[in-house]
């Protein structure tokens, strides 16, 4: 693909068009400069083509701007489309969390996904923290059973409880933490692919 920046844009000197593109430009912040340039050039090209054939230039400019819609909304569509596509292919918990956070604002399904994300990554993180604490306080960190309670991690009175894993604590918890992280990532990828709004009509 040729670099869109290097191509001189059509000298379309209409204040409304320039103002529209300026608003779109600022609404698209967050995308890379290259992506932004590409979108702006395409929209500019579209406006120029739509207006070119029209007899009443004024009305044509008015019309195409109305059909493109509010620049904030148009930018939002671009962002939503890209974010979901990227996230559904990503293995990065950060990107998945960010996307799910945005999705949760749109409705119930997104909130369920966010709950899955927070719960799954939360458990994985908590387990990882106990792994760090284990060498520091070997006698207090473990999987504890006592008084009808099962505790994973640190307890205040280890002498009153029974530790179940012993020397297996680290390998078992490593596998569990890893399993939660991977399981949550896969679940979110699946949720985003099959349940997220792919288009905002």
């Amino acid at each position, binding site marked *: 693909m040729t670099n869109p920046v290097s191509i001189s844009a059509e000298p379309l000197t209409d204040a409304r068009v320039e103002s529209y593109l300026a608003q779109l430009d600022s609404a698209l912040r967050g995308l890379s400069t290259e992506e932004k340039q590409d*979108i702006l050039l395409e929209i500019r090209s579209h406006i120029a083509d739509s207006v070119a054939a029209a007899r009443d230039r004024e009305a044509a400019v008015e019309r195409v701007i109305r059909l493109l819609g509010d620049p904030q909304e148009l930018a939002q569509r*671009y962002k939503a*489309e890209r974010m979901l596509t990227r996230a559904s292919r990503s293995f990065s918990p950060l990107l998945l969390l960010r996307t799910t956070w945005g999705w949760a604002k749109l409705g119930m399904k997104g909130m369920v996904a966010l709950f899955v994300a927070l719960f799954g990554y939360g458990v994985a993180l908590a387990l990882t923290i106990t792994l760090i604490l284990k060498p520091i306080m070997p006698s207090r960190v473990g999987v504890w059973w006592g008084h009808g309670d099962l505790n994973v991690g640190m307890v205040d009175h280890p002498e009153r409880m029974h530790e179940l894993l012993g020397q297996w604590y680290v390998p078992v918890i490593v596998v569990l933490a890893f399993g939660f992280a991977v399981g949550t990532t896969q679940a979110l990828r699946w949720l985003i692919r099959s349940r997220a709004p792919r288009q905002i009509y």
Partner: protein
Amino acid sequence: MYSAINSNGNSDRGQHWEAQLRKGCLEMAILASLWQSRLYGLEVLRALSEKSQLEIAEGTLYPILSRLKAQGLLQSEWVEAEAGHPRKYYWLTPAGRRRAREMAEAWNEFSTNLSALMQPILGVKQR
């Protein structure tokens, strides 16, 4: 965790697009419009409007084109045009052609089945 998620709906992971067939009509129409030739955005809009009376707003089209490209179904190139400004042409990648074909087949099956169901209704009306 998976079973809990799967229980809230159909769960064919590999073919999630099929479940979204109706919602994805627009996507299908856009891919179909590019079956025969490379087009730029405005031409896609015109093709849809002329061939299938499908009027979609430009504010809807461009973000979808952008996503289809990000998904690897479309490829694009800027071409300097006589009009004095460049145009961004889109065409189907091999994956895009495959997807368009799958969608056309699924759509065909779907509409044939529904047509059979609708026939009595239309038959009564015509009489």
